[in-house]
């Protein structure tokens, strides 16, 4: 009996301890500018989301008084208990005056939420609502011209491949991902012919879409499995188009077993560190300068809704304070390959700046997978044609009228 009483008392004490109340706290400071960053994946994914998180840190470092509040992994699988609407309300309650939603997955919801909070500025990264004029006035978009980074990645892969087979791990199918996949392919074809003197038609380039921006077990294809399947089928260079690092991790494991394979990760400057010895380089986003510019504009009251497709700083694509996209060379590149890539980048730079003799890979003739014409012989794609990967993008009055994006002729994989 005594023992029962003792145990009972201990249990009651535990409950009482758990129920004891506390005093509220939280003090807001007046001289702060608070901006919210909503991430679709983890802030430490060594990919897309980490690049955005670091951009927020860059703002904090460069603008006194600026403070980031952030929520990672907002997607219906990781956080079934909340929605963008609720997160935005929390951020606004916390004092956020600018909120960046950093995924295509938030595009529709951001438009809806922006109307709820007309006094807060919203930016949906990678979206294009502001381009069509269908977005509320407090919603803008920006995106980096990653096409160039992807062309360089394709070039590096073509310089290295021994089997002539390159595998691309794609996220889901939309205009952006198809645009980037096609960019890799164009870069690879060009360099396979130009620098290696091989027939680009012999180059095998395949894409497998996993179904989302990163692995969701039981929902998407498993990128680790996709990577392994590629390597088993003779592919020796893996290129990642997803938010996370599976491609380079798997290639690193295979290389450790002695296989001659390489990888090119994506998004995050430091992604090569997963397996530096077999990394050919990484095309990455450097969002910091644009974040800083946006925060300052909102703070000054000079911000206006825009759709900005930010070019690299061609004088130095790896300048952290000026270039929106960059490409870090990986340890697996030889001196000779680096020299070729330098030359390729210089040619792209000349082309992008309209210089004589510059290289523009978006030049016809280019056909889509179904044989339809993207660009006629000698025709150079416009900005919108590249953005949507559709020949009628300039004539369309609304996004619905644009022909659905397609992979280029020669790419193995599905366009829809």
């Amino acid at each position: 009996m005594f023992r029962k009483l003792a145990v009972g008392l201990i249990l009651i004490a535990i409950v009482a301890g758990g129920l004891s109340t506390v005093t509220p706290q939280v003090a807001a400071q007046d001289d702060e500018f608070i901006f919210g960053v909503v991430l679709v994946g983890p802030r430490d994914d060594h990919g897309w989301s980490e690049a955005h998180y670091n951009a927020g840190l860059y703002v904090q470092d460069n603008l006194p008084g600026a403070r980031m509040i952030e929520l990672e992994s907002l997607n219906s699988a990781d956080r079934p208990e909340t929605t963008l609407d609720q997160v935005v309300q929390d951020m606004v309650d916390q004092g956020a005056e600018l909120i960046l939603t950093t995924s295509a997955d938030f595009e529709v919801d951001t438009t809806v939420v922006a109307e709820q909070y007309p006094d807060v500025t919203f930016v949906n990264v990678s979206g294009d609502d502001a381009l069509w004029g269908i977005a509320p006035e407090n919603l803008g978009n920006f995106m980096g011209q990653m096409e160039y980074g992807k062309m360089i990645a394709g070039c590096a892969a073509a310089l290295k491949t021994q089997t002539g087979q390159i595998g691309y791990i794609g996220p889901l199918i939309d205009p952006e991902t198809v645009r980037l996949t096609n960019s890799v392919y164009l870069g690879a074809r060009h360099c396979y012919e130009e620098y290696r003197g091989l027939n680009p038609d012999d180059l095998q380039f395949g894409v497998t879409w996993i179904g989302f921006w990163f692995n969701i077990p039981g929902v998407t294809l498993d990128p680790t499995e996709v990577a392994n399947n590629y390597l088993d089928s003779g592919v020796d260079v893996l290129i990642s188009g997803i938010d996370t690092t599976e491609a380079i991790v798997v290639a690193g494991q295979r290389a450790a077993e002695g296989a001659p394979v390489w990888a090119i990760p994506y998004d995050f400057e430091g992604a090569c560190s997963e397996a530096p010895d077999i990394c050919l380089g990484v095309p990455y986003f450097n969002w910091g300068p644009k974040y800083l510019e946006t925060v300052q504009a909102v703070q000054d009251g000079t911000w206006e809704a825009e759709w900005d497709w930010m070019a690299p700083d061609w004088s130095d694509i790896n300048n952290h304070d000026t270039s929106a996209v960059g490409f870090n060379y990986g340890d697996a590149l030889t001196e000779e390959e680096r020299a070729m890539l330098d030359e390729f980048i210089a040619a792209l730079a000349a082309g992008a700046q309209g210089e004589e003799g510059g290289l523009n890979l978006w030049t016809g003739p280019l056909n889509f997978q179904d044989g339809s014409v993207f660009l006629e012989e000698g025709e150079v794609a416009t900005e919108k044609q590249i953005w949507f990967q559709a020949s009628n993008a300039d004539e369309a009055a609304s996004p619905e009228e644009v022909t659905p994006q397609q992979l280029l002729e020669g790419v193995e994989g599905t366009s829809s």
Partner: protein
Amino acid sequence: MSTTEQSSPASHPAKPAMNGAQGRMLWRSFLDLLPAMLAPFFGIAAALGIIFGILAWQGADPQIAWDYLYQGTLADAAKRADLVAYWMPLAITSFGLVLTYTAGLWNIGVEGQIVMGAIGATWGVRLFAEGEPLLGLNLGHTGILFMCFVLAAASGALWAALVGFLKTRGGVNEIFGGVALNFIAQTFNMYLVSNGGPWQPAGSRATETARFPEIARLDAFAEYRRLSPATIYITVGAMVLVFLIMYVSRWGLQLRAMGKNQRSAFLLGVRTERNIVLSLAICGALAGIGGAYRVMTPDVSKLTATPSGGVGFLAILVVLLASMSAVLVPFVSFVFAMLSKGGQRIESGFQWDHDLLLDRSLVRVLQSTIVLMVVLAFGVRNRFFPPHRAQPDTDEDEVART
């Protein structure tokens, strides 16, 4: 509390006196009952203790964490409304699971039944509210929403009945059948809304359908734009239904008999095969309605990539912790909903106010720890406060021991 006692086999009250004084029996029965009722709360308190210990180790003041938990859930009306909106799919699914678990069926497939319900509801929107309505029927706002819920319930019920048929006709254990059907439902859902799938709008970059048209959106409360009264009415209706089945109907007794011993129940004339399929189908219908809530709740209003996101699995934990008691389910599911939403607030609160990065898996750890601790609490209860006369024939031994 008499209903609680009935539902939980471990907490049967003492039977009328067989020997000894009447007063002593009452005291004994009270002693029996008290720990049974308190066990889950001890478990939850112990789990909170552990979690706050982990938080303290991470540098987060447990008192502040407790405060955030409160702020994120109950502190103001808007938070309470969001909490209720998240709670309802969990609660209605848990009510359904009470039936199957009582009948001794592990309906792991409930996650897939939620997904099918979500798809069914979206299908309703597409049939009656987008483009040319089916058969030219203009059902109007209420009619469309009614059809969405009917289709959601039907889809969920069908998916669950499939588990039942696989079990009764195909000899496939409901756990394996359920796991497989979960996978198929989720994959089908992804097919619909991703990679240019048939339900993804052309040129869309988000993995979801278009937002439902105005006419097919649930009305929200004037002050709380994310909470719809209709979902509350339906959930209360479902609760009443499950209460009637469990505590009034003969069918509820049959389910209990099956749960104790299916073969004996069968030999005593219970149509076990029919009851397996039927209880699964009712559970599936309720889970399907839960799926409809998930997509129709005003701040979603579209079919997303993972409409359930694990609510079904959470509901399984809820029902296990509630010892399959329909009376306890609303409370236990409410605690779980609070932990999910409060856990997220703890995470963001520490990051936003204190520059302290906590791991986002905190919520999952919290929920799992609670399950563990509650089970442990039941273990402690059985060790130190063994339920008397759970088996009448051991009565003599029990008395002798005390």
